[in-house]
């Protein structure tokens, strides 16, 4: 196939009478198109959720109420959480899976292309319900992203809309996960055994199973909220004999595996990027697979550590504490393996690698503060303080988000056919990596000093660290515009990328031309 013809118009050489323009994107069943849609959806939601974060930081810039009133502030923190988790990180990883999984295992497309289309187009609907609820009387949901009753039983119409949005996003994720799992299980190229799969594919296979196992539990939990609100059931309504703590148990049974849904694909991306730029095969491949699987299994028995303060018996606190601390072992194996992969490698520091190295360092900081919080006696002090905020932003921003950045810089040449502008990329990296620490590191101190989360106003002694965090936040927010610029520039032109865009890259995706033709692996490749 003529690579140049496909760059000019990906549809020209292969389709006759295929829809163009908007209809192409609405009706597409092509895994690359859908991957692109997922990634752009995540980008748009990132802008929305990011603007909310900026407003939050503006309000917290100094003590007192300046810009937003407490009601709106609570809506902003709640929506920021929901949007970033369900609208940004999860769709972005699904976008990566759509683009890369078929390319990495030598499959022509996903197993169920039409369902793939549907699972994407459900997302904008859910996003519209969620964001649209901001403009309803009473405003958007303001009870925290964790949706705890009784607040979620008492709110107005926007709470029902949010519950529907969660239902729809859940359906979308479950369909996406079934699609990805089936593709990986059934459509690998001949000769690619499970233990020869790239680690990104492995982490997504395990993530898909986590999604299928826990998204329905979340759907059940929000369904119970819905019937409590509208149909007279009393699952969580204490007035009718229900128990609000029950919601926390059910929610976190979903919630903790969800945490790994948000980070396992990140492990996969990092495990692709580091070997490429260290020019060494991944250290301890098999142990990486087993570590991923054990993290996933352990994630089902640690949910209680999110609710140490609800009054659970000491025996349960001890169980959840030890089980949680146990997760540090497989995670430690992973960090060790990444460092060992870099050890004595011929490393170069392209932007993708910079983000990957930053991921290893900063995610580990988030992991350590997680260990601190895992200890029940400490957690009871730190529950609902900024220490928790610092912890989960280290694992989600410098963890999950940085891995997404690493993946974007790494695979953009394959997607667009052009190399990334490394100078701009480095600016983006250094601005982000420095400002993100200025933003989140002081939050540890704020939390240890006792500043509660989800509060628009605070005591005077917290003013200095909050001001520093806000300044870091503004720089971090502004730096992300650079990323958009880099991506647009890379789409429009730049140095042509080879099929194997990076010298040390390994894997089937680097055997097809750059940009990847609209249809790849119509004939399955042979894997030795």
């Amino acid at each position, binding site marked *: 196939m003529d690579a140049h013809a496909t760059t000019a118009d990906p549809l020209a050489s292969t389709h006759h009478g295929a829809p163009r323009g908007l209809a192409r994107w609405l009706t597409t069943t092509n895994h690359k198109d859908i991957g692109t849609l997922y990634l752009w959806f995540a980008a748009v939601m990132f802008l929305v959720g990011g603007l909310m974060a900026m407003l939050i930081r503006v309000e917290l810039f100094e003590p007192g109420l300046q810009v937003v009133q407490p009601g709106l502030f609570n809506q902003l923190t709640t929506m920021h959480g929901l949007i970033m988790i369900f609208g940004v990180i999860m769709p972005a990883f699904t976008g990566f899976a759509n683009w890369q999984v078929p390319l990495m295992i030598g499959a022509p497309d996903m197993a169920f292309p039409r369902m793939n289309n549907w699972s994407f187009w459900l997302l904008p609907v859910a996003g519209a319900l969620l964001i649209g609820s901001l403009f309803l009387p009473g405003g958007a949901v303001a009870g925290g992203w964790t949706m705890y009753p009784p607040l979620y039983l008492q709110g107005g119409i926007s709470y029902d809309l949010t519950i529907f949005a969660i239902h729809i996003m859940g359906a979308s994720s479950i369909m996406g996960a079934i699609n990805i*799992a*089936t593709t990986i299980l059934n459509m690998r190229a001949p000769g690619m055994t499970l233990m020869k799969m790239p680690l990104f594919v492995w982490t997504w296979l395990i993530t898909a199973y986590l999604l299928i196992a826990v998204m329905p539990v*979340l759907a059940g939990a929000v369904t*119970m909220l819905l019937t409590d609100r509208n149909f007279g059931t009393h699952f969580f309504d204490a007035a009718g004999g229900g128990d609000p703590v*029950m919601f926390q*148990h059910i929610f976190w049974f979903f919630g903790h595996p969800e945490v790994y849904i948000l980070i396992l694909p990140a492990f996969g991306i990092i495990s692709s990027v580091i070997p490429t730029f260290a020019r060494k095969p991944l250290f301890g491949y098999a142990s990486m697979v087993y570590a991923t699987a054990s993290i996933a299994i352990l994630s089902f028995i640690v949910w209680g550590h999110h609710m140490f303060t609800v009054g659970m*018996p000491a025996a*349960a606190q001890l169980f959840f504490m030890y089980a949680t601390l146990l997760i540090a072992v497989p995670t430690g194996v992973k960090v060790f393996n990444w460092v060992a992969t870099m050890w004595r490698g011929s490393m170069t520091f392209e932007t993708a690698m910079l983000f990957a190295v930053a991921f290893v360092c900063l995610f580990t900081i988030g992991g350590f503060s997680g260990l601190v919080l895992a200890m029940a006696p400490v957690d009871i002090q730190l529950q609902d303080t900024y220490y928790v905020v610092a912890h989960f932003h280290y694992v989600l921003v410098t963890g999950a988000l940085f891995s997404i950045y690493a993946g974007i810089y790494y695979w953009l040449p394959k997607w667009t056919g052009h190399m990334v502008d490394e100078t701009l990329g480095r600016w983006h990296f250094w601005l982000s990596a420095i400002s993100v620490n200025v933003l989140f590191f002081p939050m540890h101190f704020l939390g240890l000093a006792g500043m509660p989360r989800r509060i628009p106003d605070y005591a005077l002694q917290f003013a200095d660290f909050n001001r520093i965090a806000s300044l870091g936040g503004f720089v971090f927010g502004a730096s992300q515009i650079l990323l958009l610029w880099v991506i647009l520039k890379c789409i429009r032109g730049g140095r042509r990328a080879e099929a194997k865009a990076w010298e040390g890259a390994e894997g089937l995706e680097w055997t097809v031309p750059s940009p990847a033709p609209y249809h790849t692996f119509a004939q399955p490749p042979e894997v030795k």
Partner: protein
Amino acid sequence: MNAATMRRANARSLLRLSLLALAMFGFGFTLVPLYDVFCDLTGLNRDAAQALANNTQVDYGRSVRIELLATVQDGARVRFSAPRQPVDVHPGELVRLDYQLENLSDRELVGHAVPSYGPAAAAEYFQKIDCFCFREQRLAPGETLRLPVMFVLDRAVPCDMNVATLSYTFFARGEGS
């Protein structure tokens, strides 16, 4: 693998994984009774829950005898009865009492119970958390209802108030309602 076998294998995976998702949806709901079963079996959280429910605001140093009365407005064909024994209540303690109301007529009956207190000054010390007198009662012909009232006697109740009477009068609403 040829295309047809692949399609079959994919359809099988789709079915299995969808069933798994469906089963997990059901599992979310079974968690509600399962937690109770689990705690009953292990005894976890049973004592602790009791301990949490302990009210530290009870004044065990004294008690007030509450006499209980129930009367019916003339002509209403109901039997309205109070608990037989008076109760001794510590100030601050949560008390639950059950009155009983029986419809002796062959018609549906709607009515309302109205409380009164003796001495009248006792009224302000009854903090009712829930009471049947808050609501209208509706009885089918021959039906018997158990009517709970939950209250806390305020700790500020004067020391010389050793006895108080809690009395309810039931008023049936007129015909045709």
